[in-house]
């Protein structure tokens, strides 16, 4: 653990990312304190630019505080990102494990299935799903999960495939351990690091996906999200640039942070790659 952190620290970008991420989380956590009441409350005059009338980041077309929106939106965006990623991991890891460990026909079937899901333009699929189950946080999370598990399955499968052939797994077989025991105690722990790295990136893309959906008006109408803010600010971008610019920046920073953290993790988890990445990134 200690030298993990040491290796992680070596990647300056990753540290920066971690700091940003922590700040965003802090903001999400303290949103109700920073901005008491609902982010939907009409707190000031519509379209007042940043700084004016005590509105740090200005107000929107109904005089709602953009800053409040961003703070409260952080909670939802992070939540959606995390939950949908967890769901995707659940599906992806299970299928990937089955395919990779059992191999043969099981592998074939699962992989065809995965390929199939990767062939459908995922964003189109996401839109479709959300529309079918009517926009709500549930349907959004579901849609994101559905379109983001295939990469996990592929990675996990590859890992399992290679680990299955490794001698320590064969040794476990020879010791007479049960399949489940082997998967759980021998293979999974060694396949973890790529999954960890991947999931940090998945949270990032989940947040992007959510914002894209909200942008197209497919977000949960009762929840304040960054995507919604941009969506509502988009049409007035020339009247009130701050409405879409600041949430955009928020998304950018968060996603950036998650990516940096992801790189840091992969550096720390497999030093070989870290050397390759060199001082870059």
């Amino acid at each position: 653990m200690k030298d993990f952190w040491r290796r992680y620290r070596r990647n300056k970008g990753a540290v920066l990312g971690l700091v940003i991420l922590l700040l965003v989380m802090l903001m999400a956590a303290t949103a109700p304190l920073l901005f008491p009441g609902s982010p939907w409350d009409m707190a000031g005059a519509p379209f007042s630019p940043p700084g004016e009338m005590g509105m740090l980041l200005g107000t929107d077309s109904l005089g709602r505080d953009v800053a409040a929106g961003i703070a409260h939106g952080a909670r939802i965006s992070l939540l959606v990102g995390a939950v949908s990623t967890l769901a995707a991991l659940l599906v992806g890891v299970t299928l990937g494990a089955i395919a990779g460990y059992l191999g043969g026909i099981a592998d074939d079937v699962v992989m065809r299935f995965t390929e199939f899901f990767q062939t459908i333009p995922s964003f189109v699929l996401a839109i479709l799903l959300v529309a079918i189950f009517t926009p709500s946080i549930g349907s959004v999370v579901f849609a994101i999960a559905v379109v983001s598990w295939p990469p996990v399955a592929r990675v996990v499968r590859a890992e399992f495939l290679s680990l299955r052939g490794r001698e320590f797994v064969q040794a476990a077989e020879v010791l007479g351990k049960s399949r489940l025991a082997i998967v759980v105690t021998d293979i999974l722990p060694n396949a973890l690091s790529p999954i960890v790295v991947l999931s940090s990136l998945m949270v990032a893309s989940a947040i992007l996906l959510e914002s894209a959906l909200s942008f197209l008006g497919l977000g949960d109408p009762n929840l304040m999200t960054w995507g919604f803010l941009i969506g509502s600010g988009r049409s007035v971008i020339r009247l009130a640039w701050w409405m879409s610019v600041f949430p955009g920046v928020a998304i950018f920073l968060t996603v950036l942070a998650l990516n940096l953290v992801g790189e840091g993790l992969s550096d720390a988890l497999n030093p070989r790659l870290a050397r390759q990445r060199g001082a870059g990134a």
Partner: protein
Amino acid sequence: MSLLRVEGLTVALPSGGDRPHAVEDISFSVEAGEILCVVGESGSGKSITANAVMRLLPKGLPVRAGAISFEGTDLLALAPEAMRRLRGQRMAMIFQEPMTALNPLMRVGDQIAEVLRVHGSGADAARRVPELLAAVNLPDPAAIARSHPFRLSGGQRQRVMIAMALALEPALLIADEPTTALDVTTQMQILRLIREIQSRRGMGVLFITHDFGVVAEIADRVAVMQHGRIVEQGLAAEVLNRPQHPYTRALIAAVPHGAAPDRADITAAPVLELRQVEKTYRRGGLFGARAVVRAVHDADFSLRRGETLGLVGESGSGKSTLARCVVKLVEPERGTIAYHGTDLRPLSRAAWKPYRRRIQMVFQDPYASLNPRRTVGETIAEGPVTHGVPRAKALDRARDLLRLVQLDPGAMDRYPHEFSGGQRQRIGIARALAMEPELLIADEPVSALDVSVQAQVLDLLADIRARLGLTMLFITHDLRVAAQICDRVAVMQRGAIVEQGRTAEVFAAPQHPYTRQLLDSIPGRGWTPPAL
């Protein structure tokens, strides 16, 4: 003036290494028309020396001191461009891994032609390439030139590498363990090839190896390296037969002497009997191109209590597959695997479980055979625990076992990566013994280890076998090793056992031509390590 002269060369290691210098103050020279073997165990700095001469050292390993003069010019002072012009033209290099040393996407011919091209003689590439391929005794040079590397065998690729190296008739050839990855027979051919070409052209050769057999085979002079220093150098005959430095002596002592011990016949009841076991691999599924490989067939043998049977053969001969069939890691299509009379082959996973205690296995790669995420203690105790032994008890036993394999019981709570290859192999053995097996299957247990370590592990195995009365199935490609440890050997070729019998007899009077070929290929078979 020597062809190559290295003086007081010191190469630094990146900080945090186990020692400050990879190579420290070494001096040697290579004359035109001679072969200098630099011999040493892994980490002795021999490869770094070779790369330093080519100035192919990674940035992490800067040259700190010393001079390298080649044909009178100081290489270390040379501008990169000038150095590039020397490489491939005056001095060439071949590497250990023929499989990865060629660009997979480039036709072999083009890769050879590239050497000519980049050194300005691309004009006659069309003519020279086939010549060169012929010169390294490759059949149908034209065809080979047109094919991609993945179509060639390891030996063929190494020949291609040599052809490439010789393309511009360099004065110096640096060979970095060029035969280590090859089978004995191929290795012998390559060694002969290098020898022949070198003498024909009067090149100087700097030959890096860890195998004294190879040294005995081709070296004119030898330099022995330990921990980045040359501890002894001199004429091959001298060093091999009258080593002075204790380290050299130790190394040579460790070389398996190959003389088969003449043991009494074992007449005990057979523990394991294999009959008509067949395993065939079919590659490619619904959409892939099919390929059928008969991995094992006609490989009957029986193994009596207390006996050690050696399965010898080259890679791909099916020896490992056969061994894995016995422990159901591979499931053969037909045949019987009778263990004390009961056929194990048809048994289900569950039905197999009780036999797991009796039959255990030691694996080849000490780095891959231990789960990096569990402590040594757990690893060893795991087996018994799976079979219902209380954890505490299993852990105590594990401690004893560590002692048995000559490791400090303090190792219990440490993780594999904190151990050296030899130590890991001991842990692997301990893991197998924890089950108190009757039959131990050892799959190339020492081939990944350095000579000295190899010797220790072999002794350990011999000792344990004697103490516990183990029956052993010992898989190896190294005939010297087989000779040293096995009562009987079975020689495998392309999935079949072509000859088996008492070790001494097989070695003394091989019946099958292939066995003979194998024996002829033992490097330095003319040389018997002196008893020290």
